[in-house]
């Protein structure tokens, strides 16, 4: 990783940049319409940072640009001070920025163990070996089981992912993401569509894995946001409305009016 010669002033001999992930003036336009306009984000290392905002605020577009699923129209994205603005998703993932999906993204026909093992294969270097038996990757099983244990799925290792409950699928997805040992995790509405009984364990799980990682989440459930995140950025109509702690943000009159009717919730 030393060979990067991008024009990022953050490096230049300094040990580690303060921000794990940084967006500088990123915009995305779809045929003249700006879904996201000139957004700056600074995600501090080791923090949990939430992106919130009313529907249509550009959260998902922003998120997709950070994960490189969408190419920004203009602006710059830095991961650990390195410019990743023009890299494809797979490359960014190898560098430690891994996303989850809003719709649960497991591999339904694979077992839980296989789900996690596939992700472990990403850095193992045998993923093209079509002439070898699975014994070639048996070494990974131990690590896969440990990851499943971390999210409370040890007993389900042999089950097909499609047979899991919704909450467990999300947990499996987190285990799969953790397999890449990402420095930055981007979680797209991790509790969306979840029953009450599942929200709490997943929130706890995110808090647990977020201890030594940087996490960016989009989340509608504000109680999850308040219990998890140190910093919150509020988006409105594609632009940053404000940024701060939950207390700061929730007392901001602009935010309250943006969430018209959501005053009680905040």
């Amino acid at each position, binding site marked *: 990783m030393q060979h990067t010669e991008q024009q990022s002033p953050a490096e230049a001999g300094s040990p580690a940049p303060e921000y794990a992930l940084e967006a500088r003036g990123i915009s995305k336009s779809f045929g003249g319409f700006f879904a996201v306009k000139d957004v700056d984000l600074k995600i501090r290392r080791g923090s949990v940072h939430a992106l919130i905002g009313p529907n249509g605020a550009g959260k998902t577009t922003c998120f997709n640009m950070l994960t490189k699923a969408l190419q920004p129209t203009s602006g710059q994205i830095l991961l650990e001070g390195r410019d990743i603005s023009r890299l494809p998703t797979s490359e960014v993932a190898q560098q430690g920025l891994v996303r989850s999906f809003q719709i649960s*993204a497991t591999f339904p026909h*694979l077992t839980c163990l296989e789900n996690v093992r596939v992700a472990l294969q990403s850095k193992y270097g045998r993923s*093209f070996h079509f002439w*070898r*038996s699975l014994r070639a990757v048996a070494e990974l099983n131990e690590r896969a089981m440990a990851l499943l244990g971390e999210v409370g799925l040890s007993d389900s290792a042999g089950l097909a992912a499609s047979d899991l409950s919704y909450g467990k699928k999300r947990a499996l997805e987190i285990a799969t993401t953790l397999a890449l040992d990402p420095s930055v995790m981007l979680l797209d509405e991790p509790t969306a569509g979840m029953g009450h009984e599942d929200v709490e364990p997943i929130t706890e799980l995110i808090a647990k894995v977020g201890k030594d990682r940087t996490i960016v989440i989009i989340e509608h459930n504000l109680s999850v946001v308040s219990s998890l995140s140190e910093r919150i950025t509020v988006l409105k109509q594609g632009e940053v409305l404000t940024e701060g702690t939950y207390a700061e943000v929730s007392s901001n009159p602009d935010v309250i009016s943006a969430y018209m009717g959501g005053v009680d919730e905040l």
Partner: protein
Amino acid sequence: MSRYLGLAAILVLALIAPFFVYSVTLMTILVFVIFASSFNLLLGYAGLLSFGQAMFFGTAAYITGHILKTTGVSLEIAIIGGMLIGAVMGFLVGLVAVRRSGIQFAMITFAIAQFVYFLLLQSEFTGGEDGMQRIPRTEIFGFIDLSDNFSFYYFVLAVTVLSIAFFYRVVHSPFGEVLKAIRDNEPRVESLGFKPDRYKLVAMTLSAGMAGLAGGLKATVFQFATLTDVSWHVSGEVIFMTLLGGLGTLTGPMVGAGIVIGLNDHLAQFGEWALISQGVILLAVILFFRRGVVGELGAFVRRYKAGGRK
């Protein structure tokens, strides 16, 4: 344990079959078992619907035939030649096609297959409309003479068994695991740091190589190669076999090939009724038996076992 018994039973059946059934029919089934399995590797395990699988099969049949007619090398060299041609073609087609998925992938493979068809129609060495006739069956390894159909069947059977072992290995390999993940959820695989296109390209090359092997075998079984082998009918037939037998199962395409060839053989005397009955069967499979023969049987056995436990 019962699985090994089943395998052994099938093998014994295959070994004694030519005493009861016409060996050319049996060899046709085996050729299509390999061919349908190659198609299944793409659709069933990588989610790629190839609508031009016959181009690898048919071209390889011509190439194997041409090698045998012009050089007189031993049989297995000529078949390997056809297989390599298939693999190279698959790689080249894959370079263009794997960036697309779904119907676009199907259309691209179909278009290229049509192009290959006309190329072969115009080529001198293929014999054009007349096809390539009287392909010699040379000795295998240079000294084993298998010119009569009865003993040749055992050679074809051996190649088929090796092919099935190959498919089994690919599907149950580290590569196969990634391939299945791509089939299940490609964006997710990409987000985990893989480049799915490269895996699909390898799958495409392997599949086309095996389709080529089937084509080469076919040329030596019938001792001729014609434009039918490269036509889209054959591409369609192999889709039919796979869907009928059961997509994404290793045994599905084999069962499907057996049923379709057997059916064609029996219904041949009724002319187009053979085609009409194929249509009706395909409709029934799509409407009622989505998982195909093997898939439905598997589901039935699972249900039965689950019921028995209660």
